[in-house]
């Protein structure tokens, strides 16, 4: 509570500053201000969205100490009125969290008991209002001690640069200490003064903006170089025009470069998904020669495990996914081992038989999941640390979840290599895959190795499921939509060769993304498929063909 008052103090200071800045603006007495404040607040109840906008403006003008709190509550859908007495309240938390809400008094901002959400009606905001509220609130944020908040506020204010905002920014820039914020404000002001009547100011603005990468800046600059309908240039001053043209040119060039990088990253992220769904298969199919049509369903099970884990640990949205990774691996692996022990072990040496049987298994698994979880999608939450983008600059940003999936893929891949190369189990797996009889003779329990190998492959499918749950629908058909791709990747890379799957998947992903902007999603995909078919004609055993006499039978 103490902290709270401190805040009030800060707001008061700011309020005074605000008043000082607007000479025209009279200072209310506290009590009357409260009254007016409540009145205009009350009007929010059944005002149209347009009226609400006006009211918000009034509230802001009133400069009442709790304006900020109220407006913040409004933008966050926490502003209610009680049905019986129509009194306005701020709720501590959103309605979806709890049936009963703890209320705050909008004037004192002190606790005002609680009420069930049924007796309360929320005051609706729409997109437009949210925008208005944000810019209004931004003015408050401008004086926040936290630089990042200040930055956001500036960015919000940039979205409509009216007189007031420009005023405030002008004042701010003089006192602003943080370089990033200062720069942002500078470019904002420059953006504004592009429209000024003074050619020198415009020229200066252009030169400040030359370094920018922003699309809206670019648009403004390009607009300046265009001719207006009557044939005269929009920008009258020759010199300024050329400066603008030059600036626009350099911005476009640099943006093009970054968008190239972006496409490349898109390719990598798509590729890593392909790799992830394929390497599990590279083991079951490549190493063991089992055409596992249930591979997709194992991924689906991985995804559902993620969902179950998330449900099992409510309130740990940030961490549940980390728990899900080992869980998914285990569940999928166990199911895989079950399949291997009950069905596949009777079918070694008959790859097609495994295709048929596992196809049956995939039907059963799908229906099983459908019976347990219904056919509806399951929502797997994206933890905060995985959502959002890594803003490298105004032209290039990378979404975190894609980034993490790329990393995840690399980790899984590396781990797999280590297991196969440096562990006893890996050794035995390779031994059995190369010469079963000999391995047996050397006392390797090939039965056990088979089970473990299949389990390993299935477990990795489960891991792929965890990743997919972050990208797409978690529903019983999840597997179906990926199985074909995973087979293609494995065959393209060369059956039984992990590096093959890696290069194969990545190159397929990148080619696909490079083509997509020109050919469109479908044609790009078709092209990739055809290219793959032709490639197999040239290299009938894929990128990295299996070598040695053993492979003669492949």
């Amino acid at each position, binding site marked *: 509570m103490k902290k709270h008052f401190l805040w009030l103090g800060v707001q008061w200071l700011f309020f005074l500053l605000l008043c000082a800045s607007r000479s025209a603006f009279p200072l209310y007495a506290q009590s009357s201000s409260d009254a007016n404040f409540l009145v205009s607040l009350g009007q929010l109840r059944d005002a149209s969205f347009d009226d609400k906008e006006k009211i918000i403006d009034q509230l802001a003008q009133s400069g009442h100490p709790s304006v900020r709190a109220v407006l913040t509550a409004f933008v966050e859908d926490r502003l209610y009125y009680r049905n019986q007495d129509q009194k306005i309240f701020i709720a501590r938390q959103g309605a979806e969290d709890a049936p009963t809400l703890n209320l705050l008094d909008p004037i004192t901002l002190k606790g005002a008991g609680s009420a069930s959400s049924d007796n309360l009606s929320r005051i609706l905001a*729409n997109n437009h209002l949210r925008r208005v509220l944000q810019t209004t609130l931004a003015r408050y944020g401008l004086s926040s001690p936290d630089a990042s908040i200040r930055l956001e506020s500036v960015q919000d204010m940039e979205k409509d640069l009216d007189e007031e905002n420009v005023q405030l920014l002008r004042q701010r820039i003089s006192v602003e200490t943080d370089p990033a914020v200062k720069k942002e404000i500078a470019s904002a002001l420059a953006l504004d003064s592009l429209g000024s009547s003074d050619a020198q100011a415009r020229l200066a603005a252009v030169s400040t903006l030359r370094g920018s990468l922003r699309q809206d800046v670019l648009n403004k600059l390009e*607009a300046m170089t265009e001719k207006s309908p009557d044939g005269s240039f929009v920008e009258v001053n020759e010199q300024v025009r050329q400066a603008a043209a030059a600036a626009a040119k350099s911005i476009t060039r640099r943006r093009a470069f970054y968008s190239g990088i972006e496409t490349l990253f898109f390719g990598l992220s798509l590729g890593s998904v392909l790799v992830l769904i394929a390497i599990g298969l590279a083991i079951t199919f490549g190493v063991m020669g089992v055409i596992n049509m249930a591979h997709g369903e194992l991924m689906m099970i991985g995804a559902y495990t993620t969902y179950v884990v998330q449900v099992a640990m409510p309130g740990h949205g940030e961490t549940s996914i980390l728990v899900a990774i080992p869980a998914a691996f285990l569940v999928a692996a166990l199911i895989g081992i079950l399949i291997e022990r009950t069905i596949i072990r009777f079918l070694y040496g008959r790859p097609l038989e495994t295709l048929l049987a596992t196809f049956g298994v995939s039907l059963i698994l799908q229906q099983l999941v459908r019976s347990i979880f219904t056919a509806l999608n399951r929502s797997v939450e994206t933890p905060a640390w995985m959502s959002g983008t890594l803003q490298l600059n105004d032209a290039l940003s990378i979404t*975190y979840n894609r980034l993490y999936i790329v990393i995840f893929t690399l980790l899984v891949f590396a781990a797999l290599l280590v297991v196969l190369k440096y562990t006893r189990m890996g050794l035995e797996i390779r031994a059995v895959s190369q010469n079963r009889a000999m391995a047996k003779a050397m006392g390797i329990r090939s039965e056990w190795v088979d089970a473990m190998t299949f389990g390993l492959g299935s477990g990795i499918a489960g891991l792929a499921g965890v990743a997919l749950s972050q990208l797409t629908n978690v529903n019983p058909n999840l597997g179906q939509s990926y199985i074909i791709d995973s087979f293609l990747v494995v065959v393209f890379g060369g059956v039984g060769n992990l590096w093959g799957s890696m290069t194969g998947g990545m190159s397929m992903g990148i080619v696909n993304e490079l083509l997509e902007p020109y050919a469109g999603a479908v044609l790009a995909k078709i092209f990739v498929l055809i290219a793959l078919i032709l490639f197999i004609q040239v290299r009938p055993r894929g990128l990295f063909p299996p070598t040695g006499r053993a492979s003669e039978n492949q």
Partner: protein
Amino acid sequence: MRYKGMRTAGLMLAIVMFFSVMAKAQDETIKIGILHSLSGTMAISETTLKDTILMMIAEQNKKGGLLGKKLEAVVVDPASNWPLFAEKAQELLEKDKVAVVFGCWTSVSRKSVLPVFEKDDGLLFYPVQYEGEESSKNVIYTGAAPNQQAIPAVEYLMNEVGVKRWVLEGTDYVYPRTTNKILEAFLLAKGVKPEDISINYTPFGYSDWQARVAAIKKFGSAGKKNAVVSTINGDANVPFYKELGNQKISAEDIPVMAFSVGEEELSGVDTKPLVGHLAAWNYFESINTPANKAFIQQWHTFIKNPKRTTNDPMEASYIGFNLWVKAVQKAGTTDVEKVLAVLPGTETPNLTGSMAKVLPNHHITKPVYIGEIRADGQFDVVWKTPGTVPGEAWSRYLPSDKDITADWVTLKCGNYNKATKTCSGQNYK
């Protein structure tokens, strides 16, 4: 000789089994066919509608059934496989002799059963918003026609939000194609410049949205107010919205108006990043009317899950079922001809406080609501049409349609050309 006989046992067995099936005895109930996919890709959406109809039937039977008989549901699974839809439709009509069928979701499934219903003179209630361009004697369309969803939605964006630049993003099949075609015609008519409209199609189940969303972002940063009108179908939506959320496209900057995304689709997404994005429907679960409250209550008890959402196609199924019941009571029989005769003009209250009335073109009247996605996956209604909107089978904005009208009362035709005074199309004789 015995072995040789057994060789073809399989074949014989199959034939014999047919007879056994053909020879099923009929009993004294009114049979109601439910033709929704319970497996395959469409199961996600369609199972819910199957349950809805089952619920309605149970309710009706509690009320003592219909015409003194109990209602009996005949559920089949066309497994999201279009030829199988046709087969199952035929099975319901010819083998089970059902009085009415509630079913289909995708347009192609409807198209594939249409010939069957017209040949066997069955009655189908189709509960999903669709592209129009069709009016069959044997189908009642209780979902929205384009003028009951798309057009009002775009008008809202244009007038209330002040959108100047449009991305029409859709899955590449007939519903988005038609809707976008109508919308494009409409927008151009409203003076939107062609370069301010960008139309793009992606395949079914498209999941790699990163590039597309980036492109939308770029298109949107041209300084004019921009909006996306999404006719993206089922599966592709979740990855699309996930990508929107990740690339931080906020509804304040670029609102996305969706026609195929409802409460159920959102129950599969983490909606926090999507707050404020829009959807246009004729029903929202959040709409606060006694009828709706009761319906939701009933649904939760029936499905034994207080968290299950309701959605627009469910309301359409609800309306369809009640319309049929009313019509049967009016006609005093379940005979399709007679029921079809009384259906136009039949009215039943919908769940949002207005009346759903069957029009001569076999579409119904519906109110249109615009909702903004809420953090809890529900919608806030931010706009609604003053009254109900009558469904139009043929769009007034398409040159190919302007002369065509559907009227099963006076013209007895679903595709009547006013100019040439000829009737063609579905029931061409």
